[in-house]
């Protein structure tokens, strides 16, 4: 895994903080994906900073949680961990409720992503012609179809992961561009943002193509572009990702992730 080079925060911490800023007051959403502690921390941090009325449903176990005015909050690697009941859980939904309840956002990890934010979690073709199995769709084919928006976090930013053509499309992002989601009758608006250890990308409003929004402190635009195989819109001015503030880092480390799970 790549780290946020020589910065006073880890990649996991930076991702959690950047993602937390995307989550809105009053929203309901579910952290998930391949390292679910990152989006879980993002949602808890949002509750403790700008979005005290945001509610979390840990989708795999139906824990409905808010950290606001709660004494303390362990962070664990897995959203299914029983110990998450101690982190502000106020109700436990039945499994049917987990799938019936509307969400403003979901998170997705992926082995591959393309320029329209379509993702592959199923299988990757190797150079020797064999296929390498990923873990499978989990619930992402569902959430990508139904949630108002979703966020993609990639642990690797390389030509192997940001690809022109997916080896397998497990979940539809913006499909083949404007009109795809409408034609398929997909409910939500699709992917809103992609974060990698190199930078933050969103999607151009007209073309729905991946667009570089910022590079992280310590990363270079040229290197990011060189490591991206899929189409990527690079605006004339690309700022650095707003660095974590001392307030954000302080709340993250003392109230969300005391044990340093995101620093491992």
């Amino acid at each position: 895994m790549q780290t946020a080079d020589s910065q006073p925060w880890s990649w996991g911490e930076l991702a959690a903080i950047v993602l937390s800023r995307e989550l809105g007051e009053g929203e309901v959403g579910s952290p998930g994906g391949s390292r679910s502690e990152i989006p879980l921390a993002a949602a808890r941090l949002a509750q403790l900073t700008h979005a005290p009325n945001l509610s979390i449903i840990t989708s795999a176990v139906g824990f409905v949680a808010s950290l606001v005015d709660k004494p303390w909050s362990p962070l664990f690697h897995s959203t299914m961990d029983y110990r998450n009941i101690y982190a502000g859980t106020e109700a436990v939904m039945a499994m049917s409720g987990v799938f019936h309840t509307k969400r403003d956002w979901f998170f997705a990890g992926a082995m591959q992503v393309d320029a329209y934010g379509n993702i592959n979690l199923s299988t990757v073709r190797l150079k020797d012609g064999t296929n390498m199995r990923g873990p499978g769709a989990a619930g992402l084919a569902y959430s990508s179809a139904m949630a108002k928006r979703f966020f993609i976090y990639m642990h690797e930013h390389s030509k192997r992961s940001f690809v022109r053509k997916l080896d397998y499309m497990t979940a539809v992002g913006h499909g083949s561009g404007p009109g795809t989601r409408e034609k398929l009758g997909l409910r939500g608006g699709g992917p809103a943002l992609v974060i990698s250890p190199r930078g933050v990308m969103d999607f151009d409003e007209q073309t729905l193509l991946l667009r570089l929004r910022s590079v992280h402190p310590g990363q270079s635009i040229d290197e990011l572009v060189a490591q991206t195989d899929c189409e990527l819109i690079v605006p004339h001015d690309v700022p650095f990702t707003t660095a974590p503030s001392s307030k954000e880092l302080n709340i993250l480390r003392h109230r969300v992730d005391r044990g340093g799970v995101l620093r491992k």
Partner: protein
Amino acid sequence: MTQRHSRQTSAADAFAWLHDGATLAIGGSLFHNKPMSLVREIVRRGTRRLTVVAMTQASIDVDLLIAAGCVEEVRVPYLGFEYLGLASNFRRHSADGRLRVWDCDETQVIAGVEAAAKNLPSGITKTGVGTDLLRSNPDLRAIDDPITGEPMVAVPAIRPDVSIIHASRGDRWGNLAYAGYPFSDVLIAEATHRSGGKVIASVDEIVPPSLIAADPFRTTIAHILVDAIVEAPWGAHPCSSHGSYQYDEAYIAHYQAEARKGEAEMNAWLDTHVRTLESHDAYLDRSLTPSRLAALRKDIYADS
């Protein structure tokens, strides 16, 4: 004078129902509430050609059955070890064609199992429209909704012949009470029962029926859905029994390390940890220690 029948039995007796080629559903999710003592019993019996359905996620339960050569097809939306890595046996056996993979999303498996629970031929979902899931899995059919014409996906009913689930406690009539989350176990039991299959439950503890009847709101699954109940203390180990004891991270990490090395190492692991232990009691006595179990029990409290 006729009497009420106890459904309490041994794992060995319960699996008289499980034949080669059967569809086996496994409850719990990821590292939680997995009926591992029953999984190990299946390995010891050497059942073959199973179609394994795991709802919603699987880890060591299904990977171990694959390694032991019990599985022909998997219908599992997520098979991996989350932060502890990918499923090595799943990858090896699917790469060389020994294992068929029925690609699916959680909500597609749920649609199929719900259809079985309702005694319907298929379930309809939005999930998978426009994806390669419909290409690689011919059982998933692209359809137009007959009312609106909207593109949808139909999933054939999934009818388990046998399902295995794990609960914290139960009574001899087969009532099950979960201390933590029941995941999709209620639906699995409903679908299996409705399809004429057999539901086999392991529990950490069988308690007097009066204790269950004293608080029926805590009974998660009613005895009418359960065909056999097997007492297996710490029976989910190395997975958690949600709310009773934590999963054994070190044990799973060791499994992962051996599984990654290759088939010979994996087979040696299976011999040591499963095949040569003739029963769950033998597993407890030889694989675990009281202090280890006490630590797993204590680990359910998050005290930072």
